[in-house]
């Protein structure tokens, strides 16, 4: 099987358009996953069972079912309920929502690792719940969690091809479009694979560096 170099170069511009969308989707999705995950983690710790239980069940449902099906839901079913989201919006929301359930677990572990003494001291010094969270708990909980959170950032980046199923023109979709048009699959598919590898392998090295810097000494 020969590799057509001319063809590969010819399709680069179209693939590049896809890369831009992939990066966009990853960054937006990460922003949602990071913030929503924190909110979920805090909600699950709520003393109020009417909050913690439903949130818990909802998170489990999202974590235990495929992202692909969730994306179909957001894209095809929501309009029937009156909410029409653009493909990218639906994709970013689906990605962010799905991964927020994972980041929530990371936050939970980090928050749980805060010694009880910190909570008690906050109470003793009359800090409000808000102040406790923003000044005491979160600043201590987050640094050790950074490697795990960064890991999910990379994971989300690799999952962006799923957005092709709801017509988002990210890299994989562009590659398929090119392949379908020219009846040539080898070059586009391999280039997509190489691109993802080219981003993941350096990020693994970066992640290891992050771990070395931020992970607690008892790991």
């Amino acid at each position, binding site marked *: 099987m020969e590799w057509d170099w001319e063809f590969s170069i010819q399709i680069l511009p179209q693939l590049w358009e896809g890369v831009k969308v992939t990066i966009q989707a990853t960054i937006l999705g990460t922003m949602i996953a990071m913030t929503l995950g924190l909110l979920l983690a805090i909600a699950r710790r709520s003393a109020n069972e009417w909050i913690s239980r439903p949130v818990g069940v909802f998170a489990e449902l999202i974590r*235990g079912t*495929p992202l692909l099906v969730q994306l*179909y839901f957001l894209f095809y079913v929501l309009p029937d309920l009156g909410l029409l989201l653009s493909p990218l919006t639906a994709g970013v929301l689906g990605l962010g929502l799905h991964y927020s359930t994972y980041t929530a677990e990371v936050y939970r572990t980090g928050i749980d690792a805060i010694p009880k003494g910190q909570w008690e001291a906050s109470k003793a010094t009359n800090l409000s719940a808000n102040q406790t969270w923003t000044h005491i708990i979160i600043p201590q909980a987050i640094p050790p969690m950074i490697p795990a959170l960064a890991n999910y950032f990379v994971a989300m980046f690799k999952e962006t091809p799923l957005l092709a199923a709801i017509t988002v023109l990210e890299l*994989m979709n562009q590659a398929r479009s090119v392949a379908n048009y020219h009846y040539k*699959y*080898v070059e586009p*598919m*391999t280039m997509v694979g190489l691109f*993802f*590898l080219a981003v993941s392998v350096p990020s693994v090295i970066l992640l290891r560096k992050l771990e070395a810097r931020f992970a607690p000494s008892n790991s």
Partner: protein
Amino acid sequence: MEQWQGYIGLILQGAVVTIEITIMGCIVALIAAFIAGLGRLSRFWLVRWMATAYIEFFRGTSIFVQLFWAYFVLPLLGVPLSPLQAGVIALGLNIGAYGAEVVRGAIKSIPREQYEACTALNLTRFQEMRHVILPQAVVRMLPTFGNNSIELLKGTAVVSLISLSDMTFQAQVVRAQTGSTAVPFLTILLLYFLFSSTISTVIKRLERHLSRGLDGTGT
């Protein structure tokens, strides 16, 4: 009304395929995880390097990309794969790469005294692994293996995109025949959730069973 029975039947057929792929994929993943995980601990530099290359390659790209490559490109390179084979192999090797790290981590977490005791008792390296190290390590691997199996289950949804008649694919078929999107998708969401919860329960039971007689799971 009997129409709906036919459609539920289709989805259940898809569920059977989903379960089949999950089980076969898990078997491939298990084999790959052990080979690669143990490979990374090998004394031979070449074996270590090959294991690392496999792990980073499959963790570096998403299941979607690997699946498409296996299904569309491999046949053109002379390796024809049916959708089922492509699905099981891609999923198995992908999850296996994550599992390999778990295997390696669990084996490394066995305290030194165990190894020293084996040397003292004059056990061969094989006996050491088979009777002392692995039984303890496997118990530690179980929780993460459980999560990995759930990831594999969720990953099977992607095979619908190469027209393999899994649950997600059949939901699309029902959707095409009935025009209703919400009902088939809600149904499979619930089924996926049911399956992932079942896996969690089975893993927990297995963990309990296998740690009998062991000196606690020793964190």
